[in-house]
């Protein structure tokens, strides 16, 4: 159904096998059906392999595998699971964050379309590991086909006894519900997501208490990304060591990368972590034009300049050293024909539009930055506007409840730091920007 560039993908690259941990069924016809999925080994773990293990063993296993959250923050998954308190008498909830909203990211969508059963399998394992009775998949409201696919898959799983009471004959029961969001970016933030799930306005909550202690319905809750959970069955199957066979020491495993922008073959690729960016671009058919820069991990990740991109590799540490982040793995290289201020304007407008409106700095700051940027792009810019934008972004970077504001601030800060002359060109286009600047002080006050 969905035709994406990048398919069929090569199974080998430069003599090395590319991992198929997550995207194994992506190129298989009808891979989303239970029958085909089972043929390809999905649900293979649901059985003694899982139920013979204790919960702590499973958590230790995931910890050992070094699996990190693939939603954007990259928090070690095993550690997150270990925070869940035990024996509180309250139910533990598992919520799958399928509210994929980061501009440039489209991997979870593909996962849910092509391989929903792997997700369900991962959820069963996770649910078992955490003692979850009820799990939710919080899907972005716009993803109607995916919701249909998920519901169909869940129905199939229920019918096959893989969900519901006593899964696979074990003592373990799990119910999965698909919750349709209303399409707010902030509902991808875990507490915002929980709020939305509970029926409140999708606004992040104050932390502490953290969701692992008191999340959905005031109970311990684990919120994980689709891709994270989908990696769990492989870990269970092949052990931590098997997972660590791919990737680097500190960033083991593979990851789905959604690449778009000035690239010949945009699409979703699963590659081991640690591959260099330039190599990855080659894998994707090569760049169009001369590289100007690259957004390495979703629009909120600080942009990399061309030189930095050439140095960077696809892992958490490399990007952290470049003061950026891997994020959700949405890579957007852009070439020298790009109008950078307009590019940033688009990003800033997105954040201004998606700010939940709870915290003052983010609510007002993102809109403020957007409007000043609009003004600059419209050719009305004045001297000092660039610094103003930068200063505003600095002001709201870390002063809010959730990480939305820093995510909105980083692209602004990094674009201005790395492409200042592009903005200055716009300001210089305004013939009387200097005169306009002087008029700021001369403007009569309230006219009325």
């Amino acid at each position: 159904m969905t035709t994406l560039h990048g398919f069929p993908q090569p199974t080998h690259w430069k003599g090395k096998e590319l991992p198929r941990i997550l995207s194994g069924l992506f190129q298989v016809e009808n891979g989303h059906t239970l029958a085909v999925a089972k043929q390809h080994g999905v649900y293979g773990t649901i059985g003694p392999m899982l139920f013979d293990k204790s919960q702590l063993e499973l958590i230790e296993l995931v910890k050992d595998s070094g699996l990190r959250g693939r939603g954007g923050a990259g928090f070690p998954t095993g550690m997150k699971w270990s925070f869940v308190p035990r024996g509180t008498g309250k139910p533990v909830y598992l919520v799958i964050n399928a509210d994929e909203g980061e501009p440039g990211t489209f991997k979870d969508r593909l996962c849910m379309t092509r391989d929903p059963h792997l997700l369900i399998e991962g959820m069963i394992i996770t649910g078992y590991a955490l003692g979850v009775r009820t799990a939710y998949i919080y899907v972005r409201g716009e993803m109607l086909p995916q919701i249909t696919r998920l519901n169909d898959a869940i129905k199939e799983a229920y019918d096959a006894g893989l969900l519901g009471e006593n899964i696979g004959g074990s003592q373990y029961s799990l119910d999965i519900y698909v919750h349709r969001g209303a399409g707010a970016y902030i509902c991808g933030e875990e507490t915002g997501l929980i709020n939305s799930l509970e029926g409140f306005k999708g606004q992040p909550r104050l932390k502490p208490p953290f969701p692992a202690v008191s999340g959905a319905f005031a109970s311990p809750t684990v919120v994980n990304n689709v891709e994270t959970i989908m990696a769990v069955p492989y870990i269970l199957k092949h052990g931590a060591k098997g997972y660590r066979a791919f990737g680097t020491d500190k960033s083991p495993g593979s990851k789905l990368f959604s690449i778009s922008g000035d690239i010949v073959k945009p699409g979703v690729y699963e590659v081991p972590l640690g591959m260099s960016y330039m190599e990855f671009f080659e894998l994707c058919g090569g760049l169009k034009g001369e590289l100007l820069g690259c957004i390495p991990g979703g629009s909120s990740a600080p942009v990399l300049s061309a030189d930095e991109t050439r140095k960077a590799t696809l892992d958490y540490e490399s990007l952290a050293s470049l003061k950026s982040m891997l994020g959700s793995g949405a890579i957007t290289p852009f070439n020298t024909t790009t109008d950078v201020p307009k590019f940033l304007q688009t990003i800033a407008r997105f954040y201004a539009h998606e700010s939940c409106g709870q915290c003052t700095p983010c609510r007002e700051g993102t809109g403020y930055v957007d409007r000043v940027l609009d003004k600059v792009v419209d050719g009305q810019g004045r001297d000092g506007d660039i610094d103003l934008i930068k200063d505003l972004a600095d002001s709201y970077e870390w002063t809010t409840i959730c990480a939305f504001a820093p995510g909105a601030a980083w692209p602004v800060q990094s674009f201005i730091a790395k492409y200042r002359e592009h903005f200055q060109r716009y300001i210089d286009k305004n013939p009387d920007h200097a005169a306009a600047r002087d008029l700021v002080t001369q403007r009569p006050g309230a006219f009325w």
Partner: protein
Amino acid sequence: MADTITINVDGKDVQVPPRTQLIEALRGPANTETPAFCYHQDLKVAGNCRICLVETEGPRGWALGISCHLQTAPGLKVRTQVSSDKIVKLRKGVMEFLLVNHPLDCPICDKAGECTLQEHYMGQGKHESRLDDAVGKQYKGGADHRFLDSKGIERGGKKIDLGPSIVLDQERCIICTRCVRFMSDVAKSPQLDIAGRGDHAYLTTFPDEPLNHEYDLNTADICPVGALTGKHFRFQQRVWMLKSVESIDPSDSLGANLTIDYNNSGSEGGKVWRLMPRRNPDVNKSWIANRTRLLYQNLAVNRLTDGKKAGGDCTIEDATIAAVAALKGAKRVAIVASGHLTTEDNAAVLALAEALGGKAEVFGGSWLTVGKADGIALSGDPVANRKGVELLGIKDNLDELVAKAKDFDVLLVAGNDLWSASAEKAAKLEVIPTRIALSAWVDATVAKATIAIGIRAWAEVRGSMVNCNGRVQLLQACPVVPNSQLEAAWSVLTALSKAAAKPLTWASEVDAWKSAQARGSAFAGMTYRSIGPMGQQVALSTTTVQPVAAGV
């Protein structure tokens, strides 16, 4: 309670109570000015204004946090604007963001002068503007101060009629959600919410539903800016021209603490302009009911500013002389005390009866119906000082008076409007030929009285009342009086004691209070100073009225 922990604020160790909000510790023991818009002592923490940012030391170094959400813990290290330039800069930034879409209409804003935004702007603001008209959200809308929401519908506006008592100025709103939290958590009637998101978020009621609640005017009080204003006070006075005295709710036996804001200068003469809640965590928290709040409107209306004698108006002096003569010539006098008057006034009733000797008998109580407590700031009992009267030893025996009305030839009613409480029962008292009424208003009892003497209303006297939970609370006198000849009830009763062989010689309400102390053992040892603005609890051994829970 006394145990405290040590936290370190700006390099100085401070003793603070454990597990309280850090902002309280900073504002209180640490004596560090900490701004806040969304934080309110009596509301849940929302933490959305972000102006109370501080730095705390954690495992990963100094981290930013909001002091309204952080709790004090032993060894906590805090940096505020005093020692951290970063905090100063970030607070300036937050203040700038708050002001991006906030209009500069302080001159016509009723909140100006008591506006939290103004206050903190002076303390934490940027002070040099870099805003221009292109950055406010209204530029996308129109000149009507309206903006387009995400669906392209016009929102906002300067004057939105939210309901019978509140007007909203959307442009001034800083989305602190105090009002939303008040309506949902305190009033338990979530009529307000924030709709929209980003800087196009706006405060609204549900479609086609007004904001209408007995406590909705409190939202105007807690609004840190002038977004919500009460219609009763809109454009009436600038708040800095008002002076205030502390008093309590005289219309309800919970005795919600409030301040009387008045202005006694200017060519208009004095006037009480509004009543504002006064925080007392043990009584009404920060809330008062609309009914209580609008009581000031009666202070200048329908007042008995003079005396009445034989149906016609006369001076207070003449009425007093007539009343003294009537009392002198009386064989049996029935004196009715009142739970609407202060304890001092009722002590004067007892003292007068004592002075008149055997011919006087004191009755008390009220025929008014007692409602239910709402759990916020009303107990439902309209007789504010019922407890105080009881503690003085006056019985609730009005029906007894009706039964033996024929025995008396003079009835002296002190501030107890019997005829409006129950005209039917009170009609039986009309067999008493001489009926003297002491009242602040021209009420039904005054209409039926043969002699009426005006007294000061509750706002104009200093005295004490005992609330339903046995808390003695003070009323302070506001100097605005419709007629300077008016005296407090105890003073008029003192004057009436000239009819006795040994008249009372009280000089001030303090003498009256001493007399009350002599009569009610529960008041022993209490002085006005010890009662103070927050009240003082009496021993509850004599309580017959069930205690009413204080506000949420």
